[in-house]
């Protein structure tokens, strides 16, 4: 199956939650030296739940789309819920078949998010 589905490309061209937060509660960076993807994620909490989350950086289609969808999903979820997310969840969220190398692109935003919890 082609991984460049319309929905993926739509998130790539118009990523949700792209940008920065002013004085976030927490922020963290991750990178994949192999392909040069870099993502910084910023987050604000309200009690135990995500109030606002944004990301920016350089990425391929897959990592950008994944960051866009993941940040949408994360809003108003609790830290515990988010800690449980794994690569299986990401694959399901993206709804595409990913080869071994591209999985790394897809889970990079999740790594960034986990750093903030």
């Amino acid at each position, binding site marked *: 199956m*082609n*991984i*460049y589905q319309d929905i993926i*490309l739509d998130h*790539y061209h118009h990523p949700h939650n792209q940008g920065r937060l002013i004085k976030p509660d927490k922020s963290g960076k991750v990178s994949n*030296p*192999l*392909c*040069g*993807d870099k993502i910084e994620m910023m987050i604000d909490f309200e009690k135990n739940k995500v109030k606002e989350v944004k990301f920016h950086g*350089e*990425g*391929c*289609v*897959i990592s950008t789309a994944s960051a866009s969808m993941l940040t949408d999903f994360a809003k108003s979820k609790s830290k515990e819920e988010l800690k449980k997310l794994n690569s299986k969840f990401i694959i399901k969220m993206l709804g595409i078949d990913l080869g071994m*190398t*591209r999985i790394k*692109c897809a889970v990079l935003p999740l790594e960034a998010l986990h750093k903030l919890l």
Partner: protein
Amino acid sequence: MINLKDIKNQFPIFKHQPGLVYLDSTATSLKPKIVIDKINEYYSEYSANVFRGIYPMSEKATAEFEETRGVVSKFINANNSREIIFTRNATESLNLLAYSLGRKIINPGDEIVTTIMEHHSNFVPWQVLAEEVGATFKIIDIDEDGNLEFKIQNSELLKQIITKKTKILTLTYVSNVLGTINPIKEIISTAKSINPNIIAIIDAAQAVPHLKIDVQELGADFIVFSSHKMLGPTGVGVLWGKEKILKDMYPFMYGGDMIDEVYVDRTTFKDVPHKFEAGTPAIGEVIAFKESIKFLEKIGMNNILEHEKKLTDFAINRLIDTFGQSIKIYGPKKIEDRGGIISFSFDKFHPHDIAQILADQGICVRAGHHCAMPLHTRLKVQATVRASFYIYNDEKDVEKLVEGLKKVKNILK
């Protein structure tokens, strides 16, 4: 002239992968049937160990194995076949040198000189050695065109880098990213005129498959390369070195086949080349390796280089004509200075996405830093896309690449 149709027919992979556009021979080459058949012959007909059995099968295997050593020796014009050492790959050959030679001759304050365009396998072993010993690790830069700075500045620049303290100069013949063909002979002779004691090591992994190499004429002390990049099997690398220096070096690994006599209190070692070949080697693969060399020689190394240069020139022109400013090709502008490797950036598209969309159309290219991170940092790019050519590629492959990139643009724009 190369008869392409005839050549393609000799590579079974094109029957199994119809429509395959293979543009990643820099990573590893495809294999002709005669090489595959020869491996099969060893495993089917005389699959004994070498140097051990007295029985005929083992003698046959040993003779075939040693015949390859002779063929390699002639192919690069070594003095004799004792100067040919079989390793697993070019990487192992370089690590062998860093260990067995480097640890013998490098002292605190000595200098090891390399270049910014090296593959990690000719960079990291020396960097680590220098750090361990307290030696200085020096790096020759490139100019904006992707040639070693040495080339335009003639010998003056090299004189600033190479000194009486330099023990080792190690550099690549052909860059696996830029395609630059370095003027190795001139570099070595200039270096040795500054300091005659320098040991010159050439990473010829991207050179031996594509151009005629004569180690005597180059003036190098060591060269390394891999069988799998020159139509041969994986698991076989070559280290060629001057016998006199090889004899003085430490062994690399200890064990079977490399020892002379072992007592409880001491061990003596075999002479070169066996001193460096511990344990059971990749017997069938070494045996079959000679078939790939014969295949290349039949086509002629000069024809191969000419074919690749023509194709590269054609490809660069087609890419620039079609995509103009949105494609950035790295490496020398002059075709004389480069071999069949084209690394590029395309618009703002990520190399992974480009390679993936090309892959969906049956086009194999590489995306990433191609094991040359210092070079990519120097070029100020994280990653590039690389297309590379060999004897089985033709203008149709280039056209498919151009069409493929159009599709990339359509999907990602």
